[in-house]
């Protein structure tokens, strides 16, 4: 009876992570799984809708990374109407740059939230601190000056998103073939120079470095703990430009192995030729993997750690300096230390801020040429968009008939790409933290939470602000009976 409770979708609580741990007769962990109820309903819901509505509607899948969904959908629609494809009608530079600006703003804002609200309290108070303290409120007491800076950073990111997309959440600025709005000089200057209650870009870059400083400090004090926690070897995947450097908005998909050899590189339109998706009855989330390598070897990691592993350099100075240190730490090999995701994230916070500064100085943002309207014969009826969302590679794939109705939609979100790796992480942590008794200890519960959180998975979207991930862990004995269950 109680067994069913864990995986029955009817009794699920939205947004909770559910973990089950399987023990053998000697109370060793033989398996551990994260069960996720992903809301796939959006792909059905969009069918029959006009294609130009997709980026507006589907971004509502998420309250945090909606800009990524919006842009990813818009890119798929560019394909569909025949803009930006191969040697065809090129995308206008202003449209691409305005989209990039919104994208970097979201990366900054999303990473700052994940890092400072969720990860930093863990670092400062320790994994074992009570959840009541291990959150941003605890941080307010301990380091109010830092919290002030973080709040100002988030506000700045939000305000930039609002300016570029029209609303703080779920804006509508990207349309098939371009954007509906550029950035005026007055708008730009607010972000360059700051104003009452709004940072200047130079202050943003200065504050953005706090994250990295904190990581270095923490790492210096707890090197052993940080480096040995959930070391999970995996392939790493992200979008790269022609130089083999990460490109958050557009590029080819590159996959590297642990020795940083290129395992695969392809045009993202060919994603489905390379990847299959496995399903499991215990999770609603699929498991993508490289077809020819199989599930075990062919699963990839995406997100900050993967990107910093894949990219050769970063185009901005402060981020590049930090990246060199990051690369040197593993001596040319991929970094598989789960908690180093936070190092990678801290570098990306700086990189986004620097990228935004570059773009703000670009006069193309004020250009009035915003939208390509291709002739009817450019219509392809199918589109794929891929971007590097804060949490990793995100794909939207649509088909529409000539009337304009969407007949098919498939979204492969970053958390799904990370599914196998997250499960490996949970398993690794459970093995390390099992007490030898058939019980879930506080330490194990915390460690699993920290392990999952490193990926900042979307299942915690809804509860980001509270700083606590709802988590339910069940322990099964060799006979398949629940011997312990904890929830918070």
């Amino acid at each position, binding site marked *: 009876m109680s067994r069913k409770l864990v995986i029955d979708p009817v009794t699920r609580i939205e947004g909770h992570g559910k973990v089950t741990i399987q023990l053998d007769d000697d109370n060793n962990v033989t398996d551990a799984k994260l069960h996720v109820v992903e809301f796939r309903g959006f792909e059905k819901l969009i069918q*029959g809708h*006009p294609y*130009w509505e997709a980026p507006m509607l589907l971004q509502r899948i998420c309250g945090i990374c909606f800009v990524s969904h919006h842009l990813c959908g818009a890119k798929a629609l560019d394909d569909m109407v025949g803009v930006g494809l191969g040697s065809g009608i090129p995308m206008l530079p202003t449209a691409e740059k305005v989209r990039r600006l919104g994208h970097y703003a979201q990366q900054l804002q999303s990473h700052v939230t994940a890092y400072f609200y969720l990860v930093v309290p863990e670092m400062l108070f320790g994994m074992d601190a009570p959840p009541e303290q291990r959150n941003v409120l605890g941080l307010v007491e301990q380091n109010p000056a830092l919290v002030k800076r973080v709040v100002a950073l988030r506000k700045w990111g939000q305000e930039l998103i609002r300016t570029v997309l*029209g*609303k703080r959440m779920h804006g509508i600025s990207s349309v098939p073939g371009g954007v*509906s709005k550029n950035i005026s000089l007055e708008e730009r200057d607010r972000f360059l120079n700051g104003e009452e209650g709004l940072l200047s870009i130079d202050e943003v870059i200065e504050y953005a470095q706090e994250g990295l400083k904190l990581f270095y400090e923490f790492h210096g004090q707890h090197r052993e703990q940080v480096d040995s926690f959930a070391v999970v070897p995996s392939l790493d995947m992200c979008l790269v430009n022609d130089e083999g450097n990460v490109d958050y908005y557009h590029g080819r998909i590159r996959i590297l192995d642990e020795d940083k050899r290129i395992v695969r590189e392809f045009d993202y339109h060919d994603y489905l030729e390379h990847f299959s998706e496995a399903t499991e009855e215990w999770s609603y989330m699929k498991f993508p993997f490289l077809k020819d390598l199989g599930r075990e070897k062919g699963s990839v990691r995406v997100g900050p750690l993967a990107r910093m592993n894949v990219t050769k350099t970063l185009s901005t100075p402060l981020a590049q300096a930090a990246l060199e240190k990051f690369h040197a730490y593993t001596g040319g090999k991929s970094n598989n230390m789960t908690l180093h995701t936070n190092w990678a994230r801290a570098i990306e916070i700086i990189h986004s801020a620097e990228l935004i500064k570059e773009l703000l100085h670009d006069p193309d943002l004020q250009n009035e040429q915003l939208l390509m309207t291709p002739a009817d014969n450019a219509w392809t009826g199918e589109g794929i968009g891929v971007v590097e969302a804060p949490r990793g590679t995100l794909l939207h794939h649509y088909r529409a008939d000539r009337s304009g109705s969407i007949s098919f939609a498939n979204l492969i979100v970053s958390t799904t790409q990370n599914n196998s790796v997250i499960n490996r992480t949970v398993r690794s942590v459970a093995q390390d933290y099992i007490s030898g008794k058939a019980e879930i200890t506080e330490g194990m519960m915390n460690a699993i939470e920290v392990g999952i959180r490193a990926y900042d998975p979307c299942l915690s979207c809804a509860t980001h602000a509270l700083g606590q991930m709802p988590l339910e862990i069940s322990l099964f004995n060799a006979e398949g009976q629940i011997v312990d269950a904890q929830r918070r």
Partner: protein
Amino acid sequence: MSIQITIDGQPVVTEAGENLVDVAAQNSVYIPTLCYLKGKPCLGTCRVCSVRVNGHFTAACSVPVTEGMQVEVDTAELADMRKALIESLFSEGNHNCPSCEKSGRCELQATGYEVGMVVSRFPYRFPLRPREVAADHIWLERDRCIFCQRCVEFIRDRQTDQKIFAIKGRGTAAQIEVNTELANRMPPEQVREAADICPVGCIIEKGVGFNDPIGRRKFELQSVRERALGEEES
């Protein structure tokens, strides 16, 4: 001929036969409307312009003013009645404003804000009316139709003056139809006119829905009340 009427007790001098909605607007009294278009014959379909004339409920857009007429607009009872009518229009369709391309340009939404609607007091009917997408440039999102008949009466084939749109069926089975053949003869500016004349996001022009950025959409630039009252001065 100059006449005098009263609106909410205030004397108003105007010309006999003028439309009551217009006379009110000239005197800075806003009467919400959804089907009425200034300068066009009254359709009288939505009743959102309900007022009392000499004590009787009536649709203001259907009233030519006459000497001595006593008009009540701004009473709690009438305001609530107009609000209820707007609410019922929301309940009878499927209106998901956040992802609707008409949002910010929609008269139903704007009027809803104007009359202070927060939620509908009527149960939602969730009608299932299939979309009509066969025409080359026109898409009918039928769940948003409020049956105002503007398109039916005012959008006609330029060669034959035939109606292009029609409402078929009665009661809950009613739905808006478009003659595909005639629709495909509409020049682009007439397609745009049809989409604009539709007070809601039912008649939409294929492919271009979200081209006005937030902040620069029709009712963000000027509220529906300001538009109704300001038109005379400009």
